[in-house]
């Protein structure tokens, strides 16, 4: 890791850890190792969104050319969101790509990701399936995102109707994770989900 990247990260780390304002907005930053090349970010799901009550972990890798190039960030906690891959956690956000500027910081990134949770951009999707659902059937999207938030991010929602459908598929020998993906992708239509799983 270059000296410049290292010094910057050290300063930024202190900035995020110390700031009260940052703590209030529900973002955190921790070291993954001693060498500052990998960090763990945490953001709280913003209020009035399906992610409310959830806590999301992010993997942050610092390139050698930081801060001239953006950090590489990915959701570790699974999430149902148009701009985040439900499979890999890859994120579609302009400032993590061509609109990154060296004057931005990890704090900027974490706050921007929180803002992205509050305001998805379905026209610039990372996960096409989720984006289509978001635009075509917002109610189902909202409930599905809530469901994922409770299963993976510790949000306190219960969806007994979804649980029943999951149990049905599990009884047919499908593992829970595949069942959830299939049902979520098919708007919780068990016939379509079964077709998708067995064809």
């Amino acid at each position, binding site marked *: 890791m270059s000296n410049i*990247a290292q010094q910057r990260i050290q300063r930024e780390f202190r900035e995020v850890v110390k700031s009260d304002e940052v703590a209030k907005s529900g973002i955190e930053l921790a070291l993954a190792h001693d060498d500052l090349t990998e960090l763990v970010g945490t953001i709280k799901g913003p209020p009035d969104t399906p992610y409310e009550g959830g806590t999301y972990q992010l993997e942050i890798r610092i390139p050698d*050319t930081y801060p*001239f190039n953006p950090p590489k960030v990915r959701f570790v906690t699974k999430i149902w969101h148009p701009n985040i891959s439900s499979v890999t956690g890859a994120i579609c956000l302009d400032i993590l790509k061509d609109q990154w*500027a*060296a*004057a931005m910081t990890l704090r900027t990134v974490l706050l921007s990701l929180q803002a992205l949770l509050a305001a998805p951009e379905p026209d610039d999707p990372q*996960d*096409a399936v989720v984006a289509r659902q978001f635009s075509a059937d917002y109610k189902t999207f909202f409930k599905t995102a809530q469901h994922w938030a409770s299963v993976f991010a510790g949000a306190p929602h219960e969806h007994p109707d979804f649980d029943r459908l999951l149990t049905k598929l599990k009884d047919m020998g499908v593992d829970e994770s595949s069942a959830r993906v299939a049902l979520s992708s098919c708007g919780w239509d068990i016939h379509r989900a079964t077709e998708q799983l067995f064809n």
Partner: protein
Amino acid sequence: MSSESPPPAASGDNQDELILAQKEAIAQDIASNASLVGNLEPVYSLEREFSHDAVFMTKIGNLKGRYAELRRTRPDGNCFFRAVAYRYFELLLHRPDEYERIKALLPRAKAQMIELGMPTFTLEDFYDNFMDHVDRVGQAHMDAQQLFETFNEPGQSDYLVVFLRLLTSMQLQRNAEFYQNFMEGDKTVAEFCATEVEPMYNESDHIHITALTEATGISLRVIYLDRGSQTEASLHDFPDQGESAATTPLVHLLYRPGHYDVIYPVKSTSESGPATSNATVTTTAELSS
């Protein structure tokens, strides 16, 4: 977006990563083939590249009378800013008047940047670093060779570029009403700065040059070596002095489509940095004087 709209293209999660990886590979390839800032070369070295092109050859031929040397910069999208910064710092080695002027100007610029809401946490850092180099060069704590080495050290070199990008952004945003006239579509000046000015590796256009020269008061001449049919390369001065060009600009850049290099007028080579084996005898003699 209505429910009838077509499904978004390419659901592949790896798409972005592939593009990013390819960009990195291209950048690495360019980096291994070109220094951030090159050694001095005689202007006629351009002839080797354009020997099959009559229009360029005529223009280069006419350039030789006015310009002696050329210093290439890496074509990484930062070339304009890096070229201006390098040449300007080189001038500061010999120009106490410029040193005093820029030293008085930069703190005001910084205050204006903060006023605009630029993040102080990082801005201070880029400002301090830039100012530190201005001082070192202006107070002769750094010589031409050290300057050359500094500009070829990627992190340090890019740190200086970032500050010029921020200065340019500040100038555009402070005069947003005027610059709005040059925006394409319904893009705002602030959006333009966020996408085309502040991010590294974005190429510079007329508007960047205008704003940077305005913000810094550094006068600049760009010689355009393009495919236009005239026999002389056309030139443009920033700020525009019209027909009555009273003073010769401080910094001279050579533009070829998509790229800027530093170019040295015949008379001012005595201020140039480390010479190469290619450099003319005159230059070497002047440097050692």
